[in-house]
């Protein structure tokens, strides 16, 4: 039997589970797993890949003998990039299909839309994308990065290793860039960066004429101090942005751009020649040299039937989230959501970069932070990584409203936003 990307210990557990499974009479029925990703509409670009990842993971698990002696069954629904529809589909999954857990959502607004449903029906949601933080729910497990696992370390790298003194915070005009930039601005000022050395710029969705903004950045960066751009520019608008940078001769050596939403999947749609050397901060890169990553890539490309398909960070988040759920269910001996919520805290599974991911009491996980430079072949070359693992922080330490808040879902606290100063749990996200 070929063992794919799992530690020996986990595999041993599984073979025992498989053994007992084959003996149990109840092997007939299945455990249902919900997959809530848009397969049509604007977000289909990113989310379809995650649906396929989930199907592959469930398939692999079934080949290993399933879970608790039962086979897993994927229930795939299409919320069509329509936020209210996300809530409806989530309700269907939990009430009609009685799924044991749901893996899904991409945008923050879709997560906010399903949140009340999961809290009302006590479901489990594994959310795989980097987000702006400021949330912790009893029913949601955040396997993507919080700002302190992506944005803040990236700024640290630029400041300490590259010696950047002037900052351009460029973003698309919506909630994730605005919150992230607010955190970063507060962080930079706390580090002693002067007001006139920070330039903040917002552009509309799908902005395509970057001439004057790039010219401004060039001017801002030519005044003798090392300058970098921290980009929270969303999806599509990145292509004309990087093209304009290339055409106006702004190279990564002069003014590096570090992006938080440009990954392998996004790069596969464009000519990376002029982008070489620009940076991205993630917790996983396809180019990471580890045995478990090689196995994952081989399995993925085999499953999807193409050697050109890439892997990316949210896929790794699903890989981690799924394995954590499997382990927690085995530990609890049941798929009951409350039992799994208790069992999953403290569960550790291998990540794809050769380390371990642990579920923390605030429902965020530990991750390494990697900074990579874009290469001509559309891959990232890791140039820096955090020495250890970083614990995801639900409430930012740099914002006034949230620095006194903490999340801890273990008894006796069991609260998503406990105010350490007033000693009260405010009740939001309960």
């Amino acid at each position, binding site marked *: 039997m070929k063992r794919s990307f799992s530690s020996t210990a986990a595999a041993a557990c599984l073979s025992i589970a498989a053994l007992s499974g084959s003996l149990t009479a109840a092997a007939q029925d299945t455990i249902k797993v919900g997959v809530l990703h848009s397969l*049509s509409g*604007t977000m*289909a*670009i990113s989310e*379809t890949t995650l649906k396929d990842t989930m199907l592959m993971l469930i398939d692999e698990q079934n080949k290993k003998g399933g879970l608790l002696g039962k086979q897993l069954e994927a229930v795939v629904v299409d919320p069509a990039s329509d936020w209210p529809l996300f809530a409806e589909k989530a309700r269907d999954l939990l009430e009609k299909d009685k799924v044991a857990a749901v893996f899904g959502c991409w945008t923050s607004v879709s997560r906010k839309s399903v949140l009340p449903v999961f809290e009302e029906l006590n479901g489990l949601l594994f959310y795989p994308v980097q987000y702006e933080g400021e949330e912790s729910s009893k029913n949601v497990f955040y396997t993507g990065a919080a700002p302190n696992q992506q944005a803040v370390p990236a700024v640290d790298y630029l400041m300490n290793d*590259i010696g950047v003194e002037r900052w351009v915070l460029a973003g698309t*005009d919506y909630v994730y860039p605005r919150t992230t930039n607010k955190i970063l601005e507060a962080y930079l000022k706390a580090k002693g960066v002067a007001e006139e050395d920070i330039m903040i*710029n*917002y*552009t*509309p969705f*799908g*902005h*395509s*004429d970057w*001439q*004057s*903004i790039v*010219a*401004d950045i060039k001017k801002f960066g*030519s*005044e*003798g101090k090392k300058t970098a751009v921290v980009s929270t520019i969303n999806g*599509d608008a990145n*292509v*004309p942005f990087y*093209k*304009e940078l*290339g*055409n*106006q*001769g702004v190279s*990564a*050596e002069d003014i*590096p751009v570090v992006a938080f939403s440009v990954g392998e999947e996004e790069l596969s*749609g*464009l*000519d990376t020649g*002029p982008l*070489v*050397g620009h940076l991205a901060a993630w917790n996983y890169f396809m180019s990471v*040299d580890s045995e478990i990553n*090689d196995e994952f*890539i081989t399995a993925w490309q085999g499953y999807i039937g193409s050697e050109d398909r890439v892997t990316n960070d949210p896929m790794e988040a699903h890989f981690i989230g799924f394995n954590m759920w499997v382990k927690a269910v085995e530990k609890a001996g049941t798929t009951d959501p409350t039992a799994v919520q208790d069992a999953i805290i403290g569960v*550790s599974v291998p990540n794809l970069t*050769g*380390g*371990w991911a*642990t579920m923390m009491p605030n429902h965020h996980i*530990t991750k390494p932070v990697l900074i990579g*430079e874009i*290469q*001509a*072949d559309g891959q990232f*070359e*890791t*140039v820096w990584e955090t020495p*250890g*693992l970083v614990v995801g922080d639900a409430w930012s330490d740099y914002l006034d409203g949230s620095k006194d808040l903490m999340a801890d879902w273990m008894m006796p606290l069991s609260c998503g936003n406990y105010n350490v100063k007033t000693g009260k749990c405010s009740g939001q996200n309960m």
Partner: protein
Amino acid sequence: MHRVFPLLVSRLTMGLAILLTLACVPVVGMTEATAASATEADLQTGLILLKQKRFAQKAEGVDALANSGDTLARSLLEALLNGRLFERKSDGLLVFVDTRGAELRIEDVLTGEMLEPIKKRQLRKIGINNALRTRIRAALATFDLSDPDPAVRLVAVNQMLDTLDPETTERLRGYLASESDPTVRDAMISAIHLANLSADDPALRLAAVEGLSGNLQPAVRNGLVALQSSSDDPELGAAVNEVLNGIDLRIQLYGLAETVFFGLSLGSVLVLAAIGLAITFGVMGVINMAHGELIMLGAYTTYVIQQLMPNAVGLSVLISIPAAFLVAGLVGILIERGVIRFLYGRPLETLLATFGISLILQQAVRSIFSPLNRSVATPDWMSGSLEINSVLSLTLNRLYILLFCFLVFSALYLILKRTSLGLQVRAVSQNRAMARAMGVRSARVDALTFGLGSGIAGVAGVALSQLTNVGPNLGQAYIIDSFMVVVFGGVGNLWGTLVAGLSLGVANKFLEPWAGAVLAKILVLVFIILFIQKRPRGLFPQKGRAAEG
């Protein structure tokens, strides 16, 4: 804390491996040195260091290669810069890899021998970072100072401005004596002046300041600003001030020219997108909400043609122009014959029907090409910029599109004014009944006019494919802007569309630095609404009987 363990262990083994290989370096160096020159030793050291994982060691490797002065070192550094240098995982052999073809072409670095093709994951790329890239470029710049092409030498000199140290300055002085090209000489003299700004001799410093008068290089300006704040010599201070003021004035002037160019180029995109609509909406009076999707079809045509001829990017873009015209034009005629002709005189129904068509076209593209954006390559002659000086450079793709916009406009103008089709189009649009009485087949003219307008939209799509994403949503971004330009310019007037598009572009670009991209767009929109209140027929209202009708 058992979790930290694997990480620690892997670190340790890595460190050990590096130590071991490092220990081997001098040994290899010495055994080779007995047989070969010091150059060879540098080269060998460089090769081994390049394969290390730590960037600091790779940097030493680059220096060793640069010192060796070997011709192989140069091609090695270039391959490293271009990401073509790989290590074979099985035996650690360094190879050049060409990934462009279907099969990898693998070449032994040392022997130049072609090797058996293997899978990409069996190779490990020698990765570099920005610091290394700067170092490699500096190393290559010293090679380039003796290049026969003066343009290459000029780039090399300007490259060195940011990293001037006594050593490179000395080297530049050496090259200056033998330099024959006047532009390169000037650049070298400026570089030496720049280095002299920090000289101890006050006379030398003053001469350097005066020598840099009017120089627009950012490094020069920064050097002068630094000198201004640090110097306490009044005579020098006055000279620096005067030179700096002169430089700032010139920078401002060129900044103005740059903004005008940005505005014109944004305007040319608006005109290209709108000019097809000026025909269908302006001349025929059809509100075509699918106009944006016709632009999108033109962009996808470019993509398909480029897939058909992957080795001739430039030619494929040129061929795409007539092809996109035909594809979008035919789809336009199909829409006119199939839907719009039943709805003439009922603008609201036309609007809804064409909006439906736009959704159908978008979804069709999603199903055929996938919802992912497609990448259209830009030909070499359209990338980069025309550098006028170090503060003003005109990006080539925008420059070509500006020219292209004028070409399309003139062609369309000639068709309408000089051909019999144009005559019939104008006749039908001015007075349909009379035109029919004169023997014009108005149905055929309608179809051809709509086809012409749609075809021009397709051509605009080719231009847009060079600027922005080619995806199913491409058209939506331009439909509002197009209507805005046509209404502002005056319905039914081509000149109006041209002037309106260009002036809106320039106005937008002058507002943008002051108000930000979002607010600038809003302000322009508000201005147009106010303007239409005052002059409901736009900048250039159509005169005559048709206008009243």
